[in-house]
């Protein structure tokens, strides 16, 4: 997921806005012998990301060829030259934003990619105690933490913090590999931003927690916002 994002970013940034010339006439394009794929390839190679998005020309060429009609492609081709929305003509921030907005299909071996319908992150973090700011977990690394989870009404639904300090020495913190979709998304995202020793309060929207289903047969109801106090004890 991230790899593909990077790919688009670099290719659009490194390609200079050289003069792109119009090679084909309308007659040529309209000809039955002229393959749709060639038009698509040209436009994908030369148009700005936002242009491609607007004209629904993003993604695998085969798929685009199936869904787009020739007339539409010819129109797009012409519009590209009219608007001059070539690659490299957009400020970097815009590119980054658009890249985030794209729905990317990538085959991921470890965990299937979530639908990237990004908006703002669906959790907030307030740091209660700063960490060492050096040891941040990377995706796939083990993270160990103490945590307490409550619902908005204050009900504690889960905790691994033992009641007494003495018992804490006898109990082990929760350890898991972060960033791999093994835990609820709010945790995966938040813990990547926390360093060793950090204690933070996380408020996670249901979409990045247990969503519409909640956790049946548990204290977590449907559409529940979850609040966690998490202390990162160790990073790998």
């Amino acid at each position, binding site marked *: 997921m991230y790899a593909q994002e990077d790919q688009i970013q670099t290719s659009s940034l490194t390609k200079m806005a050289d003069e792109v010339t119009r090679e084909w006439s309308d007659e040529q394009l309209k000809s039955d012998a002229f393959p749709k794929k060639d038009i698509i390839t040209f436009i994908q190679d030369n148009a700005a990301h936002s242009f491609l998005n607007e004209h629904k020309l993003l993604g695998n060429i085969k798929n685009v060829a199936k869904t787009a009609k020739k007339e539409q492609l010819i129109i797009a081709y012409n519009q590209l030259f009219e608007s001059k929305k070539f690659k490299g003509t957009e400020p970097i921030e815009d590119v980054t934003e658009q890249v985030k907005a794209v729905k990317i299909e990538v085959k991921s071996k470890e965990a299937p990619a979530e639908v990237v319908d990004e908006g703002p992150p669906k959790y907030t973090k307030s740091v209660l105690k700063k960490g060492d700011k050096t040891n941040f977990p990377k995706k796939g690394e083990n993270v160990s933490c103490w945590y307490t989870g409550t619902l908005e009404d204050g009900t504690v639904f889960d905790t691994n913090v033992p009641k007494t300090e003495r018992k804490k020495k006898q109990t082990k913190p929760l350890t*898991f590999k972060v960033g791999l979709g*093994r835990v609820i998304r709010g945790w995966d995202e938040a813990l990547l931003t926390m360093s060793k020793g950090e204690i933070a309060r996380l408020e996670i929207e249901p979409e990045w927690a247990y969503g519409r289903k909640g*956790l*049946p047969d548990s204290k977590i109801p449907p559409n529940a916002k979850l609040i966690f106090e998490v202390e990162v004890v160790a990073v790998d």
Partner: protein
Amino acid sequence: MKCPVCLLREDKARLKTAGMALEQLSDVVQRCQALPEDRYTTEDHDVFTISGRTCIEEGNSAQVLSIVLDEKNQDIVRCMGWNLLPPLIQVLVKKEDKKLSQCLAIFNHLLQTCRPKELLIGLLEQLEQDDPDTIATSLHLLLNPLQKVLLCLGSRKASSLGMTLSSVLDQVAKLPLPHTKEQEEDDVFSLCRCCTDLIDFVKPFVHEARQNLLNTEARHEREQGRDNEDELQTELLKFCMKTLSHPLLEVQLKDPDTLAVSPLRNFATEILNTLSAIGESVPSLVYQPLLKRKQVPGFLEEEVRYPKESLASLAHLVFVHHLAADTFPSVFSPVFCLRSNMEHICLLLSRTEEFRIQKGLELYEKSLVRVEDCSLHADLLEIKTFLTVPQHMVKVMTICPRHDLRTRGLKVLQLSIDKFDTEAKYNLFQYMLKTSNHSGVEGYVIKNIKNQIDVALQPGNSNTWFVGAHLLPLLRKVLSLPDGPETDLLHYLDRVMESLNLLRYLVIRDKATDNQTGIWTELYKIEDTFLKPLRVGVNMSRAHYERELHNTMATTRAKAKEESVLSVSVGDEKLPNMTSESQIQALHSALHTFDMIESVLVRIEELTEGEGKSLD
């Protein structure tokens, strides 16, 4: 009834042998009183053993008791006393003997006096019994003494404990299992009591193992793995794993609403607690299929250490019965949980025992309901279990003898379908059409395809799988006859009917002017490859069955004529000729089926000709 004289003679003989045995016992004891232990001969041991045992068997336990309690004899008792265990335990197990209290007194004294290792051998030997009643009684009798003996073994107790637990579980395995709530309450074969006794038995050892764990951890600051493999932990782990397989996998635990106090549920809970106490994290065990565990440099290989079946049983206890829910973290993602459980589910559904299938279905259902509809990505189908499980489900739905399990299988299959996203549904349908080899299942899948097309045709739901480019290849597979015109229409009825239903749906729902699904441009092909051969098939089959019906009815009439001369009556009723009647019924039913098929064919013709004409 023996004559009184014979009885008397038997009594006298018995008293004589008893007397002899007692004499011998007294002799050997007296002889050894003066000797140090290492001077007892083998003969001394043997005489003591045989005579002592005989005394007890013959009912002279009172005398044996006084010998055994005698202060002067304590060295002898310590050395040889354990040999008396077999007949003692026999008496104690039978419970009816008048000498019960004396034998009990001897038994208790031996437990206090003799050497632990030898007592262990003696006690373990007596665990082995044949009939369930004796098994249960001997377990109840011997677990406590065994515990005491083992606790005396000090730091070398682990392997002996392992041996003991293994023997105990072997015996428990012979007890019939309660299945209903009433059976669990009545506990006629004492399985529940044995399980409860077992928990009490292991308590001190679990406590010791937990202490060892804490001490080891105090010495090493942070342990990533288990550097010092604790034997006691290993034996307790083996024990827990074994119980998870039997009896826990085979019994159906009752929920608190059904049975407030359930010894079996308590037993299961205690096993989970034991696992935690010995340092085995339940989440790690349950999610083991997906976690790469470091090879523990210990005594057992990974597979042996954590048998897959035991882990599946554990997963079921955690996710279906919610045991130890308070200590199970509520942070894992539902998809991760499902992926992990698929391994357990696959294992459970892979064999035919009904209790396993039931648990597999329950675990699957519980894992699926946490996932949002249409959220499972097509990538998941690249994981082997995500394809193997549907195959197992097909087997369950079609050949499991229990009707409720077949029905449940279907329900859970549909639930799983609903959770996959559109692309995944598409791939799964293709896969099932290819591999299920069952007309009913294929028909069910085709119905699902129709539903998905219906969804996709609704405004805003368009996708490339059920209306776009991918639909036609799928339709071609669906709208086909397995054997052309020779296809056995009755055998393939479900599939054929659903295919026709789908086609009829398409030509009604998707207007020829829209042709969103592409069906109208495909029709001429479908006519050739599906509709025409089907018409031919229907006609051929109908002709064949009509002929059969005619012949059968002719035969019946002929037989009836014969029978009018010779008829069979029972009471007033004439016995009908059942075979040919039911034959005729079946033939009529088949003909009705062909009519049904034909009616849909005709309807489709009407719809397509009409549209075709309007397009001209």
